[in-house]
């Protein structure tokens, strides 16, 4: 068994586009769930809107890549408003069910044959990279870097761009949450009625929170789409659940929790997806096939989610005094 190779592949995921994209989407979710107490189970749809908004505006309408990102953000804002109007006045579990249903509607609309001309239905979209790569400030030939982090200029550009977005998002959330506006959000999470009694428009605050978190989700979708392709099979309900695992792992009401959570999630996934097949090839895991080892990784995600919520609901970085679960 080649431990060097396994550790190399694992360490590469520290800066993988997936890690960055999930971190961004989880930051959005931390605004929704961690700071405002909104049970948004439709974060996958925000990501899908970002990814498809980006790819479709480039492929079908020939817009520049940065306009594509803006289109993705606008789509997420529109979705947040449409989603928020009927649901934000309702109780938490209603919001959960409606957001999950709305996310599924969005996914089915992207997957159906009806809009095949724009979405390419189940096959997804690709080949929209020219504009983004033309804007690449790194111009070296071949690959460069050290250890497991050897990238071509385009790969490096995706990662640098993504990390800048994550840093900006974390900074924005940090500044927002220490502002009076952020304190109102936390107040809504702790006791909605009390905040309402102070004369605040709870509905408007929740809507603003939904929009801001949704924008981060859309940016996560864009980053996920940047390196390769938009695959509709990714934006399923499970994606939202993985984001919750990431968020709760790091700490729902923290700034760095979602980022660290995403890194831990992906590094463990990458480690298992490398080490399990190696163990199977060496005959150390009798009775398990390669396909089964892939299932095992997701079983562990589910079990981890249960254990975190039961035994450490505040996450790794969370403060136990700050209640992260309403009611």
């Amino acid at each position, binding site marked *: 068994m080649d431990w060097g190779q396994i550790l190399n592949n694992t360490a590469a995921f520290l800066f993988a586009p997936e890690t960055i994209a999930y971190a961004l989407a989880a930051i959005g979710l931390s605004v929704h769930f961690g700071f405002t107490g909104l049970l948004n189970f439709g974060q996958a749809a925000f990501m899908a809107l970002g990814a498809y908004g980006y790819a479709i505006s480039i492929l079908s309408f020939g817009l520049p890549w940065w306009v594509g990102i803006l289109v993705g953000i606008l789509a997420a804002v529109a979705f947040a408003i449409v989603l928020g109007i009927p649901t934000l006045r*309702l109780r938490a579990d*209603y919001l959960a069910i409606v957001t999950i249903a709305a996310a599924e509607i969005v996914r089915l609309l992207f*997957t159906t044959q009806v809009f095949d001309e724009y979405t390419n239905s189940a096959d997804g979209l690709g080949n929209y990279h020219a504009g983004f790569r033309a804007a690449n400030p790194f111009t070296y030939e071949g690959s460069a870097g050290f250890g497991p982090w050897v990238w071509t200029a385009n790969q490096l550009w995706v990662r640098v761009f993504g990390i800048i977005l994550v840093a900006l998002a974390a900074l924005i959330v940090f500044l927002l949450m220490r502002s009076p506006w952020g304190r109102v959000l936390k107040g809504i999470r702790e006791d909605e009625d009390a905040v309402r009694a102070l004369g605040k428009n709870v509905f408007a605050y929740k809507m603003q929170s939904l929009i801001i978190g949704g924008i981060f989700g859309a940016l996560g979708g864009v980053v996920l789409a940047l390196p390769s392709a938009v695959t509709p099979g990714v934006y399923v309900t499970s994606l939202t659940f993985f984001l919750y695992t990431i968020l709760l792992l790091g700490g729902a009401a923290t700034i760095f929790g979602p980022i660290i959570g995403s890194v831990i999630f992906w590094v463990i996934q990458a480690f298992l997806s490398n080490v399990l097949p190696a163990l199977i090839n060496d005959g150390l895991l009798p009775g398990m096939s390669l396909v089964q080892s892939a299932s095992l990784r997701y079983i562990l995600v589910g079990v981890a989610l249960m254990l975190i919520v039961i035994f450490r609901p505040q996450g790794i970085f969370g403060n136990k005094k700050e209640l992260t679960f309403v009611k």
Partner: protein
Amino acid sequence: MEVARRTNQRKKRAILALFGAVLALMAITSTATAASADEIGTDEYDYIFSGNVKYNSEPLEDVLIKVDGNGYNAEVVTDADGKWKIGVPEKAEYTITIDESTLPEGVIVTDEDASGASKKAEFGLTKNKSVNFFLGEGVRETTSVWDQLGERIANGLNFGLMLALAAIGVSLVFGTTGLSNFAHSEMVTFGALMGLVFSGTAYLGWPIWVGIPIAVLLSAVFGFTLDFVIWKPLRKKGVGLVQVMIVSIGLSLALRYIFQYFFGGDTQQLPGAGGASVDFLGPISLSVIDLVSMAISIVVLLAVAFWLLRTRIGKATRAISDNPSLAAASGIDVDRVIRIVWILSAALAGLSGILWAYFRPGIKWDMGAGILLLIFAAVTLGGLGTALGALVGSLVVGLLVEISTLFIPSDLKYVGALVVLILVLLVRPQGILGRKERIG
């Protein structure tokens, strides 16, 4: 809307034909852009299906061929020589379908290896596989929209009743414990998988009238175990509702992939699935399985209604749904009732899983997750926490899903139900039978 259909086809084919017709309509509008390409995906992928569509040795042009399987699908139109080629990403089994509505009048697929107008094909030792269909003369009869509506309603009722079995469980659990149980979908899958273990030909192969009751019984045991191991300790610990809900999401993920671990990713069939259909009330033809399935659903639902309305435990259940503290104060053993509710709801979910395995047809590791949202939609539509509301909501959702396929493509049929869910919440958030105070 008139749709071509063969005389001796089962109802499933009618759905296919309808879907095909809609697709064909879209193909007519969109093939202009897709060009008269007789080859697709042959550059991107190594594995290639090809064929030659001929009738009486005459090549047929502009016949629509579709390939579907492993999450990939593509379609081409034959060229002037009747030839077509489709590249596919994997060396695996695919379903190749000829769109009969694009064949000339009076010509249908008469291939003995084909089921309807579809054929399954797999690659041999090479990367190319030729797939040809025998075409022959056949009568295509047209079905009016009213006859189709009748058939859709019958299917919708069947689907709705089956959905109700699962939805009542969700509703009872929500009513008594306040939990929106996301792992309910896995209890549905569990029932179907146990049915497969005991009655599936690849497993124990016992007769279905033995296998299905055992599967339902095991589902009940499963429900008891989950309550004993997870839900009861969490209740005792006083863990918050949202937390428990997220635990149920984790459980749902874990269970789903455990099923995949042990049963693989393929679709498997229970014995007798896709049986012959009998004509039933004019244009409506239902298979024996459909009729038995509806009868079982109705009997079980009536029994549950009787249990809720007339028996001591049933009344206690409703009392706890209404006001748990008051119920406990009046001497009801809340813990015992909740345990019974878990067992009952798991058994009902298992039964609905088996019926759904026949309705789809097929058993797959993530089949339950596919209808979880419809179950939630049904429960929310009827009114969260009201058992009879769940029944009403399920029937509405079932009918809506099936009837909407008359107007929208069937790959969007769940969208209709989910949109209605959101619209109903806008005007009547407490659901059809719910009371206003519940929405808080």
